[in-house]
C-alpha cells in the first residue's frame, strides 16, 4: 500500500535524533510489549508479515506520532482483535479509555512470476504497479532500473503471507541501484542495495511492453 510507512527518500525531515549507543528501551512496558508480540508470533497467531502490515494500516496521523513500541502495541492489539482472541470493547474496558487500532486490510495477492530466474549482473526493472495490501517493494524503486548482484534465499511472498493467501516461497535478489538514478536531483551518490522479491521484477528489456 502507498502508506505513510513507506519512508525511503521522503523529504522534509530534519536531523536524525541520534544518540550514540542509545538504550533500546526507555520504559518497562516497551520491553514487555516487544516480548508479547514475539510470543504471539511463536504461538502461530500471526506471521511477521501480518505484524508489519498491521503497523502499516495504522491511521497515518497515529503512525507519524507514535513511538516504535506504540506501533508494536497497536499492531499486536489489532491482530488479537482480528483473530478473534479479544474484542475491541474488552481492550477498551481493560485500558480504561479508547484503544486506537489499525484499519482493516485490503486483500492479499499470490506470486506474480514464480518461475522466472534472474541472473547475477542482469539489468532489471522494478514493476511500477501499486498494490493496496502488504508489500515489501518500497515505492522509491518502483519503475527504476537496477542490477542484480546475486540471488538470495527464497522467502514467503509477503504480499500473500501477510494476508494468509497461498503462495510459493520465491527467490529474492540483492539488487543494486544508484542513488543518483533513484533521485536525480537531490541525493548523495551511493549504491542502494534492496532485497527484491522476484514477483516485483521484470527483465529491463520488457519495459517497452508495459509494467
Amino acid at each position, binding site marked *: 500500500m502507498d502508506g505513510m510507512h513507506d519512508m525511503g527518500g521522503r523529504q522534509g525531515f530534519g536531523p536524525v535524533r541520534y544518540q550514540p549507543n542509545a538504550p533500546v528501551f526507555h520504559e518497562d512496558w516497551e520491553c514487555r510489549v516487544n516480548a508479547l508480540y514475539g510470543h504471539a508470533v511463536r504461538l502461530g497467531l500471526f506471521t511477521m508479515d501480518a505484524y508489519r502490515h498491521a503497523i502499516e494500516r495504522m491511521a497515518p496521523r497515529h503512525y507519524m506520532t507514535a513511538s516504535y513500541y506504540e506501533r508494536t502495541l497497536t499492531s499486536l492489539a489489532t491482530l488479537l482483535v482480528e483473530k478473534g482472541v479479544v474484542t475491541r470493547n474488552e481492550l477498551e474496558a481493560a485500558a480504561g479509555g479508547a484503544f486506537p487500532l489499525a484499519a482493516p486490510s485490503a486483500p492479499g495477492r499470490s506470486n506474480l512470476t514464480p518461475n522466472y530466474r534472474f541472473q547475477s549482473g542482469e539489468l532489471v526493472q522494478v514493476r511500477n504497479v501499486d498494490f493496496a495490501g502488504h508489500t515489501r517493494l518500497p515505492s522509491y524503486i518502483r519503475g527504476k532500473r537496477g542490477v542484480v548482484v546475486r540471488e*538470495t534465499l527464497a522467502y514467503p511472498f509477503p504480499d500473500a503471507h501477510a494476508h494468509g493467501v497461498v503462495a510459493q516461497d520465491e527467490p529474492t535478489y540483492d539488487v543494486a541501484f544508484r542513488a543518483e538514478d533513484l533521485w536525480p536531483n537531490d541525493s548523495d551518490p551511493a549504491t542502494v542495495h534492496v532485497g*527484491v522479491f522476484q514477483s516485483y521484477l521484470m527483465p529491463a528489456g520488457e519495459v517497452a511492453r508495459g509494467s
Partner: protein
Amino acid sequence: MDNSEISGGRVADVINRAAAVEALMEERGMEPAAAIARGVQSAEEDWVPRNGARIVAKAWTDPEFRQRLLTDGKAAAAELGFSMPAHHRFLVALENTVDLHNVIVCTLCSCTAFTIIGLPPDWYKDLEYRARVVRQSRTVLREMGLDLPQSTQIKVWDTTTDTRYMVIPVQPPETLGWPEEKLVEIVTKDSMIGVSRLPGT
C-alpha cells in the same frame, strides 16, 4: 492525534493499553507472564551487541572464519553459538574497507539482525533515519558524526526481505595483534549498523 475521533472517547495512556493487552492475553490462557520473563531476559542477556562483536573480532583474527562469515553469515554465527529466528534465513556480513563504507537501514519498518547486533535503538526505527539515509547517506552520516572522505564509496542496505545484515567495521590499525577477547571490547552496535567507524579507521 485527535482523541475525539477514536471510539468517541479519550485514548487510554499507552501504559494502560499495554497492560490491557497483557491482562487479556493472561485471561485467554496465553501465558504472557512467562513470555515476558523470557523476552526481557533475551533482550537484556541474549540479543546483545557483544554477539556481533565476537563475530567481528573472530573475523579480524581468523581469515578462514572471515571467509566462512562472508559466504554464509548465519552458519558462521552458529559456529559461535549465536542463533537467529527461523524467519531470518540468511545473514550477510558487509565488510567495510578504507574505500568502502556500508550502512544498514530498514525504510519500511525497522528490521535488524537483532539476535546478533542487539535490538535497534530509537533513532534507527525513527522516521528521520528511514526517510533520509537511503537518499542522503553521506550527509546523514556526517550529521551523525561520521564525516567520510569523498573517496570512500557508500553502500546503503535496505532490509526489505528477511535476509539480515551486519557491518564488519575496519579494524583499528593499533589493535592489530590484539587477542580476540580484547578486540571484542572495542566493537560497538553503531559500528555494526554502519553509522560510525571505530576510532582511528
